[in-house]
């Protein structure tokens, strides 16, 4: 049974066309640098109950994930962004964990796609 991939191939191909096959690796690398930091900041903001910082980080991750075609990750980040906007961070602990797991899937997929680009 085929399961949904973490990355929408069509969007990824469009991105590759936009920046060029010789640059996509650098872009993915930058994402690998930025995303874990964002997730860490989400956790910290949750701990410190800082909705604004939480919202901004979720917004950034949503945007980056969408650029790569990581739809599920983007949706999850969007949900966290809405919670941040509402000011209610109480329930977000588990959501962050799920998002973190999804990110790992996305990262694996991107590594594979990057390798295929070479």
């Amino acid at each position, binding site marked *: 049974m085929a399961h949904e991939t973490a990355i929408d191939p069509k*969007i990824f191909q*469009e*991105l590759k*066309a*936009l*920046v*060029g096959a010789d*640059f996509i690796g*650098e*872009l993915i690398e*930058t*994402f690998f*640098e*930025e995303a874990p930091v964002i997730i860490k900041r989400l956790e910290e903001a949750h701990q410190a109950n800082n909705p604004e910082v939480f919202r*901004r980080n979720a*917004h*950034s991750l*949503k*945007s*980056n994930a*969408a*650029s790569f075609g990581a739809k599920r990750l983007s949706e999850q980040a*969007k949900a966290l962004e809405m919670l941040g906007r509402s000011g209610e961070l109480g329930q977000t602990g588990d959501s962050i964990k799920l998002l973190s797991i999804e990110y790992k899937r996305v990262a694996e997929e991107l590594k594979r796609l990057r390798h295929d680009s070479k």
Partner: protein
Amino acid sequence: MTRSKMHGPGRLLVVEDNKVNRILLQRGLEQEGHAVTAAANGKEALELLQRQPFDIVLLDIEMPEMNGFEVLKACLGDTRLREIPIIITSASDEIDSVVKCIEMGADDYLRKPLNPVLLRARVNASLEKKRLRDEQRRLFDTLATSEVADELLKEGFALGGKHVEASVLFCDIRSFTSMAESQDPSETMELLNTYFTLIFEPIKEHGGIVNQIVGDGIMAIFGAPIPRADHREQAVLAAIEMLGLLKDFNQEQKLRGKLQIEIGIGIAAGRVIAGFTGTQERAIFTCIGDTVNLASRIQNHTKIAGKPLLIDENARQGLAENFQIELLDSITFRGKSQPVAVFSVNY
């Protein structure tokens, strides 16, 4: 079907705090052949805008510290930056912010994640817009001060006129026709062009706008389209400077054994009807009314009077004590019933 690239490369500024988005956009635009500078925040963006020329700004609304709205406001409030098209980049759920930006004066928007086809189309459209604005400004700058040009570009123009208080200046080369006949045509044109270069500058510097060139004669207006209380003084100062420049020019010509130019300037002040006339496709800014006719007649009279700069009573009233003014005559111009006092200004 792909359209051929109609435009040359542009100088683009990308303002985006998110690193992935920033390098993505910069690289994507560079692939299209543009020269792209990226700023990570609003403050950096404004500093760059002050230092370098740009054709388009791609601005992210959602940024910490100085956000997109503030950058937008700063650009729109600056006379020079105002003409740079701004494309707002936003996430798809920020439609309210996008609308607000467009209402403030942003030119266009792009949704993130960026669609390459839309990106190219919007960037090209904005480049075209910028090029048209640049051309317009060049046209205006040749005839008016940048102040006037700013005003016209900002307000646009509507056909129709209104009453304003202004000073009208006419300037002609004395005995141009006979001079032209005695020379090679190319020499005549060269002389004419030098003369125009010399006399346009003082007019511009004193806030005037050259609105007509007919042969060797020009008509300039002070106090319209941008009103100024000291239009009379500015007109006379411009005239004095024009004469001074011509004097220097003539000295040089004499040394080279070439033709010298004598000019006659007439200035009248008062109420005129000022505005754009013509059609929407082809219009000029002009003034009409008795004041204009009088200025023209007075200019003509410089030949008879043998004085290079003549002004009317109304213009004289706008001048301070330090101008050397001499009542020349009271002249009844043809077609008029009342005599008009004409003054000569010594310089």
